[in-house]
Structures are given as C-alpha cells and as structure tokens.
C-alpha cells in the first residue's frame, strides 16, 4: 500500500495505491488519522484511482474515518474508484454517506 497526502484549503486529500483489506487497513487508518490530526482540515477526499482492490474491511475503516470527519462537521468524498471497489461500496450502502466524484477538482468544488 502506497499512501500520499496533501492539504488544499480545509481539505485533506489522500491518494491510495494498492489494495485495501484487513492486512493494510491499519496502515491506511493510521495514515489518514495522522493527516486529520496534524492539519487544520475539515473535509477528507480519498483519491482511489490507483486502489486496485477493496473488501469489507475497507468499508469498516472508511466508516470509521467518516465518523471522525463527521464529528468536526466535515464530509468524506471518494474519487474515481474502480468497478470492483464501487460494487463493494454499493453492497454496503456507503454511497449514502460518502459521495463519489470523477475527479479531485469536482470533489473539491462540491465540498
């Protein structure tokens, strides 16, 4: 798993590369939480363009991040998830709380 982050205004943007499962969930969680703690941000955008696989362990960790961001009045958005990831999102109903965009700029504009 390869993670990078940048801050744009009050938004933390994380790029996720690799596979998000139970094995990598902790690394993902710690990375995002550090970004949320160390920066004066409100919203979280996850760029999933290079996320090749995700299962329900990913759903669990995404809901956890959603709760954190929600507490500070922010929103979570995902960008460009592939079909496999999107199907897991759909099954779990996560699109009800996390919106999906086709590009980072569209997500930034909408937040």
């Amino acid at each position, binding site marked *: 798993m390869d993670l990078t982050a940048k801050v744009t205004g009050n938004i933390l943007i994380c790029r996720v590369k690799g596979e998000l*499962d*139970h*094995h990598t969930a902790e690394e993902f*969680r710690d990375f995002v939480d550090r970004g949320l703690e160390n920066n004066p941000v409100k919203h979280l955008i996850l760029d999933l363009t290079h996320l090749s696989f995700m*299962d*329900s*362990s990913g759903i669990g960790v995404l809901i956890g991040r959603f709760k954190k961001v929600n507490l500070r009045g922010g929103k979570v958005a995902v960008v460009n998830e592939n079909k496999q990831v999107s199907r*897991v999102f759909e*099954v*779990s109903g996560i699109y009800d709380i996390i919106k999906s965009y086709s590009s980072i700029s569209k997500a930034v504009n909408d937040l």
Partner: protein
Amino acid sequence: MNVKNFMELRIPSKSQNEAFARVATAAFASQLDPTIEELADIKTAVSEAVTNSIIHGYEDCEGIIIIKCRMDEHGVEIEVRDEGKGIEDVEQARQPLYTSKPELERSGMGFTVMETFMDEVEVHSEKGKGTVVIMRKKFASLAKGQGVSGNEG
C-alpha cells in the same frame, strides 16, 4: 458436481496471506476463462471468508486455513475452512451490519458481500470446532453447456 479439476491450499492465519489467498484462488478459477468481473467477485468473496477465519476464527492465536476450489463445467465451488472458535448463531452472523468486533472497526458486511458476489453461500459452524464457508459461482461464458473439456489437456 462433476469435478473437472480442483486444488487445496493451506496457509497460516496471517493477514499477509489474505492477498495471496485471493490471488491464488483467482489464478485457479481463471482456467475456466471467467470475465474480469467474475474473477473480481471471486477475489472479493475469498478475501472476506479468509479474513473472517483470521480475525474471528483464530482471533489472536495462529491456526491453519484450508481453501479448496473445485471446478466443473459450469463454474467453481470454493470452500474456506478453519478450526477456530466457530459461530454460535450463524443466522445472526449473516445479518448485514452484524459484527462481534465493532471495536476493530469491522463493518459486519463480510457475509453480505460474499452472498452478493457469489451465487450461493453455505455456512457450517460449530462453537469451539470451527467454520466452513462454501461458495458457488457459475460463469456466464459456460452457461450454454459449452463445457471446458475442449480447452484442457
């Protein structure tokens, strides 16, 4: 089931083997020329079942997970077995959002994902003995009775 080919894989319940388990099972299933989406479904379902054996079945102690895959002329049957702590109430466990480990940020969607991505999911479990999940999936390309024997040597 008129088994044409099969494999059996044993791995210790380490989280780094989740990726290996799903890749190996998908590599085996790919002998039947499924679509990319069907292969992704299998990877996802296997990942769920193997992760459950690691987190819930064996919890903090290490045990062996056995993955069996059988194929016939219609598709695959995948069995994921552990000799871990077992499930007391299987019906409850299969409910969407039910998890016994919310403190680990589990979503409780594992069985729901398996059921959605595969055609059939059977769960057999006995408290203290272990759990067996059997999942079946037919592949669209094999639906017209085209069989697979023509491609195999």
